[in-house]
């Protein structure tokens, strides 16, 4: 069985809603394997958010092909894409985006509920993940009762809950202080190492870049460098 999780070939993306078309991606080729801990970096406007959105099935390429876990997601319709994201991709957003009216536990098990998992399975997995992110004692707190760092750890647990093919994290440390950033990176690195979970980040944060085992640099919609440590 192939261990390639993400395979992007000749990805182009042009935004032509404005008077002057914007070429965000100009032929990106990228392959990410199971268990990689990859940071996609680059200046603003380099196309890293666009690449992440396409990898995450939130946007479609203008041309090219994107396969996630062997599925060509550019051929899926909107509804199929929602299902695909639910079952295969864990998202961690810059501003956490937890559901404010649900407790930390309920947030973590939310996608599992959408998947139709049993209560027992949800309870077991939620507890396991909340313990893994160090928040086993904050299960019943609502997001407003947690710090930014704690919320982002809950968001990581939520992303992991449905056992996705990989985790896509968009600037996950942008709103965190240095202690919370270090904590979060420790947790993600441990999960990556111990459970072989694939992480893909977009980031500006040098602390994240330093911890990444592969750094893909985008410039003007093209991969300028791709280095593995």
């Amino acid at each position, binding site marked *: 069985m192939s261990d390639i999780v993400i395979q992007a070939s000749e990805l182009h993306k042009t935004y032509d809603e404005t008077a002057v078309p914007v070429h965000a991606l100009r032929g990106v080729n990228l392959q990410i394997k199971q268990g990689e801990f990859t940071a996609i970096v680059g200046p603003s406007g380099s196309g890293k958010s666009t690449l992440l*959105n396409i990898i995450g099935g939130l946007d479609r390429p203008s041309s090219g092909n994107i396969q996630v876990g062997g599925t060509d997601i550019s051929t899926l319709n909107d*509804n199929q894409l929602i*299902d695909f994201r*639910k079952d295969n991709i864990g*998202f961690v957003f810059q501003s956490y985006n937890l559901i404010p009216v*649900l407790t930390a536990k309920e947030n973590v098990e939310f996608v599992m509920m959408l998947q139709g998992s049993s209560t027992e399975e949800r309870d077991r997995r939620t507890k396991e993940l909340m313990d893994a992110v160090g928040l086993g004692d904050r299960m019943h707190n609502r997001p407003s009762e947690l710090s930014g760092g704690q919320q982002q750890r809950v968001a990581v647990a939520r992303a992991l809950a449905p056992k996705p093919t990989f985790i896509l994290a968009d600037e996950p440390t942008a709103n965190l202080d240095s202690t919370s950033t270090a904590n979060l990176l420790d947790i993600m690195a441990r999960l990556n190492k111990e459970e072989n979970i694939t992480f893909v980040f977009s980031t500006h944060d040098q602390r994240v870049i330093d911890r990444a085992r592969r750094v893909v640099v985008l410039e003007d919609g093209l991969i300028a460098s791709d280095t593995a440590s």
Partner: protein
Amino acid sequence: MSTLLKLASRNIWRNKRRTLITAASILFGVFFASVMRCFQVGAWDNMINSVVKYYFGYAQIHKKGYWEEISLDKSMEHSADFSQIVKAYPEIIDLVPRLESFALASAEKATKGVMVIGIDPEPEHNLTSLKDKIIEGAYLEPDDNAVLVAEGLASFLNFSLGDTIVLISSGYHGANAAGKYPIKGITKFGSPDLNKRLIHLPLKQAQYFFAADNLLSSMVVNIKDKDELQSVMGHLKKELDPEKYEIMDYEELLPDLMEAKALDVAGGKIFMTILYTIIGFGIFGTILMLLRERRYEFGVLTAIGMKRHQISIMVWLELLFVGILGCILGMLLATPVVLYLESNPIEFTGDFAATYEKWGINPVLPAKFDLSIFGRQAWIILLMITLMAIYPFYEIFRLKPIKAMRS
């Protein structure tokens, strides 16, 4: 579904003030619409009850064709079938027999056209409270050979109690009808028209006078509960030969009154439509605010795998919960008000009351407590919410997660 219910029930309290304002506007609408409608139904029930109890009854049985051409010659046999019907159906208190026609009443120097009604005194009183309308003298007994004369007529003919009135008419199939009867009682009716021309005779005397032995113009149906009328009508239509009899309820007997009611109800509906339109704008404002505030959140939910129809159902449930909250509060507020006004109706005074009394209508404005009225208001609100939820559904279905999360 339980996830959506949980989310929706918690989401409505995210913006407490907005939820309460929306619920309050629904409360206001349900309260006013319910109270207004209860008054309208109560007022019409009062009016119809008064008119029905005054003379017409809730239904009448005639010989087929009688109502089309009211004439003694269209009288029917006082059949044994009628007493069987009363025994068979407990909803019917009684069938009240009448023989009616016109006659000339004469005094020494005056003559006047009158309406002569032959009655069975006890059942007639049970239906129309005729005994209570006697202002002088005594009520009739079945075997009396005497009459009750309306006050206006007695005054016109200059009669007083104990005088003898002469009646001349054309009887059944053109027979001569003439008789003289002592006045046993003077009656007073609210309606000036009836007051000037009514004479009541015991049924047997009327049948003898009109040479209409064992004949009746009508059998008035006296029932226990107005709400049973349709079932009683069903029984009667089943039991009585439609080739021989016509059975008419008060709506058919009083088409003018029903038309006036329909007009009033239509006016009420226009008012309600305006009221609900105003409330509808309030709810729609809430929907617009909700969509604007939560666009980003809907984008995130779609991104992490929540389907658009699930988000739409969640939003619909939120609106529904606010609607149900407003409806329940509105009904809770309206219930004691309506119950109070049902047992303590607004009493008319002065000329207005006099006009009501003149027509034999109780001069009050009662409210009628009827749960179906409350229920209907709630259904209207919930239906409005469901229809208005089409707009957020449309917005959610065309939502692009990337654009929504950039908003």
